[in-house]
């Protein structure tokens, strides 16, 4: 088997990012959209760590730690918003949450 280089990890990150983007675009359930967002965060993190490992430069790992912290904060606020939407609408179907639509 051919040796694994930086391009393999970057390609896997690109595939994972596009799968997450597809989920964000097509899912109607708010929690499923949040899950797809986590996939995209992970793709970005994978790229950062691969760069940090192959270039090599430790700053990519530091940035990945920051991204994980921000993702945790995002998930907490996102779940709070989902629960708030559920309390007001009794569902979390994003296509029907259009009260502010002009």
């Amino acid at each position, binding site marked *: *088997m*051919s*040796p*694994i280089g*930086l*391009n*393999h*990890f970057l*390609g*896997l990150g*690109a*595939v*994972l990012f*596009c*799968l997450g*983007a*597809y989920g964000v*675009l*097509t*899912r*109607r*359930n708010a*929690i*499923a959209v949040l*899950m*797809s967002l*986590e*996939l995209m965060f*992970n793709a970005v993190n*994978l790229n950062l*760590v*691969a760069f*940090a*490992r*192959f*270039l090599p430069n*430790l*700053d990519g*790992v*530091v940035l990945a*730690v920051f991204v*994980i*912290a*921000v*993702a*945790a*904060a*995002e*998930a*907490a*606020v996102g*779940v*709070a*918003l*989902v*629960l*708030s939407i559920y*309390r007001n609408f009794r569902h979390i*179907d994003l*296509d029907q949450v259009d009260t502010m639509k002009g």
Partner: protein
Amino acid sequence: MIFDPNPVAFWLLAAMVTGCALAVIRAHKLYHAGLALVGTLFGVAGLYGLLQVWFLAGVQVLVYVGAIVILLLFAIMLTHHMMTPNLKTLSTQPWTAAAMCLMLLAVLLGGILSSTWQTAPDTTVYPTWTSQSGFQVAEAIPSVKALGFRLLDPFTLPFEMVSVLILVAMIAALAVARKPPTPEDPAEGCEEVVP
């Protein structure tokens, strides 16, 4: 020495990550999507391990699998009957979205393949694999140690800002998810004691 990950492990982990990611975005039952997300996150943690960034693999399992996925599963259980098939999960234009994502993928892969990266030979910051002695655990310590120094020497301000951000996010999550006091419910928010 050029860093050379194990190809078999890489392809196995890549298959695990993409398969579970497909399950996350296509599963009909939301709870199954959450379980598939656990598989994806463990696969990414394995890839970090394959890259020999052990600290981040641990952080991935602790923060993502241990905290974020549990939070999402709690949200599923609070808003759904757990095993209800949720067939109307896809929007009305899945093929447009698929075409856009495929175009994005083509652009990204084209950019990756047409670039040349200035990869350098491996340094001693990371632990090294030798076929005679296995993992040299003693050299894994400087990796985390170097990361800690890196966090506190040039990245002090972002490090502190992230802690403030997490505090703000925690307060914001409480403020958003909290039940708003209604006018006909005087017990909420009224603390005055009637003698």
